[in-house]
């Protein structure tokens, strides 16, 4: 695949966007648009995969666009190809899903034109080969996704979500702009190839790393820059939520990898420290926040923060290994991170599609109003279960495979010589394990409250299975979760060229190992075989089922639930989402959220109900954002006076600033 091809399909996507804009109100135009996008993304996916597997050479083109003395560079290398595959896979799945889903949208024309534009923007970010095109595409991606977030702008809270999103997106772009400014150096070499040619001093590299963490990290949702994410991702229509959570955060990860691993030059060991610490913190905090939410899509959005944290832990480890010259270990850690990028694109898209299906079927996102959907929506509930298992890192699914690789990378880190890393890495390992266990709890809660039990309200009782298109999209993603989990060796081998290009080494080839198992370093050290584990479980389960059905009693009777003899007919006596989270809130909440409970128990004889009120604090918001917002409004109020001056004072202001600037220019060495 050449860069020409990549550009061509970005142009086709834009053409589709224009078509959608012109035909917004026509009947069935949204189905046609999404169908076309699906085909385009699918072709893009195939092309990217072929490029990745065949090991095609890099290709670069320069167009006379953009800044005149740079031109617009577009290039395709292994890293680009991998992320193009992720973007187009997520895009294809989302468009397939949307063919059916968009029928249920009240005003599909509010989102239809922006989806192809959003896809084109994400493709363009990955294809960009110079800082200007990168930033242009990045901003284009942000703005088109902002338009999608605002699609339901009349709903409560959406306007605020859009506002917070656009502020944070501007902040992120600003940070990236400054990062590229530092990277380009005084000569203004904005093409990636030129940036790569010269190396930044350690101090400058530190600034660039901080800016890249702020810029790409805010888009990816790293704590504490995550505040916009749980507002904006759920506010958009569900297929767009899937795109934003499953794909756009990956584009942000791409931006980070491109800057830190590729453009920044040889890494220093201390660069791994902040990435590891922030990644580990995001992983645990993200899933703890997710555990406390009762809105289904918000739970999923917070869990994205957790997964991004896991990915950044892998990246931080890779950086630390590479700085110390342990290239194979770096390749292992990087592969773990990229594998998780792929996995998260699979299962988070799947889960958002499932949440969208629930929304279509019931009109509800609030978990405490749902329940018992497994009987009303059998296919959705089955694929959603696979998604929940995968995201909880359960073997033999894909989430476990990448988590396992990350653990193996951590086990290699005692060889790192620096004390800072020696002390931080085991702690991060504990955070990783904690977040995996919390994720399992979080998704037991989601599945148990939404799909199991009895329907809590009429909306859940009358739910019906969604359309075939949506089901097809969800089922194919679920199948991918299983395949990537059972045959992780294929993915690892596919990622080998990326690791080779970035850290100069690759993991040992896995395809040649017997029984398709994976062994990151050597089989005597560690190995895992998803295929065999899957086969063993399937065999033992069927054997047990066979033996039981052959030899045990087959009598079966349906009866009312037992519940220790006190069954309650009201479905509201089931555990609620908040009730389920209470033990974990008690263990972690006082520390993380400063949670406090206030119990209002009526005296005997009073007929009013008892109440329990829980207050949770979002410390990131209260300690960082609220003071900043206060400061901004304080300053704005003071500056407001400048708006009401006389013309003479304005003229003198202009005059004095001119004099001042000229003086500064004259004094400047």
């Amino acid at each position, binding site marked *: 695949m050449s860069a020409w091809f990549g550009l061509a399909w970005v142009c086709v996507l834009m053409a589709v966007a224009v078509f959608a804009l012109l035909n917004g109100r026509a009947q069935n135009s949204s189905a046609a648009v999404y169908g076309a996008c699906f085909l385009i993304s699918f072709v893009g996916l195939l092309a990217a995969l072929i490029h990745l597997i065949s090991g095609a050479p890099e290709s670069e083109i320069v167009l006379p666009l953009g800044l005149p003395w740079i031109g617009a560079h577009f290039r395709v290398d292994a890293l680009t190809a991998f992320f193009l595959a992720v973007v187009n896979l997520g895009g294809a799945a989302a468009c397939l899903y949307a063919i059916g889903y968009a029928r249920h949208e009240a005003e599909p024309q509010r989102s239809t034109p922006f989806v192809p534009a959003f896809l084109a923007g994400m493709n363009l970010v990955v294809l960009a080969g110079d800082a200007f095109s990168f930033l242009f595409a990045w901003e284009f991606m942000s703005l088109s996704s902002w338009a999608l977030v605002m699609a339901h702008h009349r709903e409560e809270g959406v306007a605020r979500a859009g506002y917070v999103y656009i502020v944070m997106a501007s902040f992120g772009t600003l940070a990236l702009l400054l990062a590229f400014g530092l990277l380009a150096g005084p000569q203004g070499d904005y093409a990636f190839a030129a940036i790569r040619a010269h190396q930044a001093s350690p101090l400058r590299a530190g600034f660039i790393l901080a800016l890249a963490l702020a810029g790409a990290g805010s888009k990816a949702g790293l704590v504490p820059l995550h505040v916009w994410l749980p507002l904006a991702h759920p506010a958009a229509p569900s297929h767009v939520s899937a795109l934003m959570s499953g794909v756009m955060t990956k584009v942000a990860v791409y931006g980070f990898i491109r800057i830190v691993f590729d453009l920044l030059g040889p890494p220093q060991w201390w660069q791994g420290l902040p990435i590891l610490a922030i990644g580990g913190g995001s992983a645990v905090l993200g899933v703890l926040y997710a555990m406390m939410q009762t809105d289904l899509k918000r739970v999923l959005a917070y869990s994205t923060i957790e997964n991004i944290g896991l990915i950044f832990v892998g990246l931080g480890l890779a950086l630390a290994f590479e700085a110390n010259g342990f290239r194979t270990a770096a390749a292992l850690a990087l592969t773990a991170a990229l594998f998780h990028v792929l996995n998260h694109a699979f299962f988070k898209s799947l889960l958002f599609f499932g949440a969208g299906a629930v929304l279509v079927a019931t009109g509800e996102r609030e978990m405490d109003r749902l329940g018992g959907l497994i009987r009303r929506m059998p296919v959705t509930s089955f694929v959603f279960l696979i998604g929940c298992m995968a995201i909880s890192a359960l073997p033999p699914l894909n989430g476990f495979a990448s988590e396992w690789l990350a653990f193996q990378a951590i086990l290699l880190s005692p060889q790192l010589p620096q004390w800072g890393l020696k002390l931080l890495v085991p702690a991060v390992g504990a955070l990783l394990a904690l977040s995996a266990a919390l994720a399992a709890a979080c998704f037991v809660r989601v599945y148990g409250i939404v799909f199991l039990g009895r329907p809590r309200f009429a909306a859940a009782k009358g739910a019906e299975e969604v359309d075939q298109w949506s089901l097809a999209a969800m089922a194919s993603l679920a199948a991918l979760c299983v395949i990537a989990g059972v045959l992780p060796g294929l993915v690892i081998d596919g990622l080998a060229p990326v690791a080779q290009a970035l850290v100069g080494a690759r993991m040992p080839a896995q395809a040649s190992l017997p029984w398709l198992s994976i062994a990151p370093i050597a089989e005597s050290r560690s190995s895992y075989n998803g295929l065999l584990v899957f086969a063993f479980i399937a065999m033992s389960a069927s054997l047990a089922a066979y033996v039981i059905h052959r030899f045990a009693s087959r009598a079966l009777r349906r009866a009312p639930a037992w519940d220790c003899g006190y069954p309650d007919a009201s479905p509201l006596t089931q555990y609620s989402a908040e009730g389920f989270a209470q033990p974990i809130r*008690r263990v972690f909440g006082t520390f993380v959220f400063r949670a406090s409970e206030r119990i209002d128990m009526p005296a005997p004889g009073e007929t009013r109900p008892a109440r329990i009120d829980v207050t949770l604090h979002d410390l990131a918001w209260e300690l960082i954002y609220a003071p900043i917002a206060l400061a901004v409004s304080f300053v704005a109020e003071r500056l407001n006076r400048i708006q009401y001056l006389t013309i003479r004072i304005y003229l003198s202001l202009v005059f004095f600033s001119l004099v001042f600037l000229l003086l500064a220019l004259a004094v400047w060495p």
Partner: protein
Amino acid sequence: MAVILDLVVQNAQMLLVLLLAPLLTGFVRKAKARLQRRRGPSLLQPYRDLLRLSRKETVLAEESSWLFRVIPYLIFAATWVAASLVPTFAAGLMFNWSADLIAIIALLGSARFFLALAGMDVGTSFGGLGSSREMMIATLAEPATIMIVFTLALLAGSTQLSQVAAFMLSPAVGLRVSLGLALVALVMVAIAENGRIPIDNPATHLELTMVHEAMLLEYSGRHLAVIELAASLKLLLYLSLIACVFLPWGQAQPGAGPAAQLAGVGAYIGKLAVGGLFLAWFETSIAKMRVFRVSDFLGAALMLGLLGTLLLFVSRSL
């Protein structure tokens, strides 16, 4: 020929753990009863219970879904596979390499995931209570286990159980602080994971503190039998794990003849008996703790595991 022999040994192990698991449960109950000056049920009582349950009619709650009927087999399969991959009487089994220690722990995590879902399927308040508490316990127990695994893996240079056992047999091991911490933490986790006193009481129902039993309340007949067997297997697995890692003596080494294998079986049963006795003694001598103190107990296990790992990051000789 060698492959067939390996396969035979592997299958023998699968059968052995399956057959021994109820016996171990019976043994612990018996030992506990004797320590409490009771006579206690026969050692074979768990087998009889399983047989009785499997012959009974199954009563399903009206609200239960298909998942509820599938879950017992999934739990059983995941636990059985995990238990078969821990070297018991012989090291270096044919399929040992297909899942290392991390994968075995994660398999148990899968079983727990499904059990917690089963608790929520019928939509009763007791089931939700059990699931919610079980997951709270798991959020602390699982990372603690992973930290223990880290400690062992850093020492032995491998996450493969066979390799860890081989390392423990080698003279390189010696007395180490980190190993001591790992052992204590593993025992604590094993007690919590199997729902034993002081975390949970396997002998009671209808207690405000119950966890494991609350999730099973709606199960009956053959489904209950399968889940009970899985619970016994889990107890056996944890004892085997402790035995395999900390007392690997007597295990038949790869390539050993049938005599060594038999001796290995004998040694294994001996180790299980010691472990069962210890468990019975521990359970008799301690009181059940409140649910919200479980986090302190398991938090201590997590800290011990983390400390062990940290020590090894600082120096390989600790």
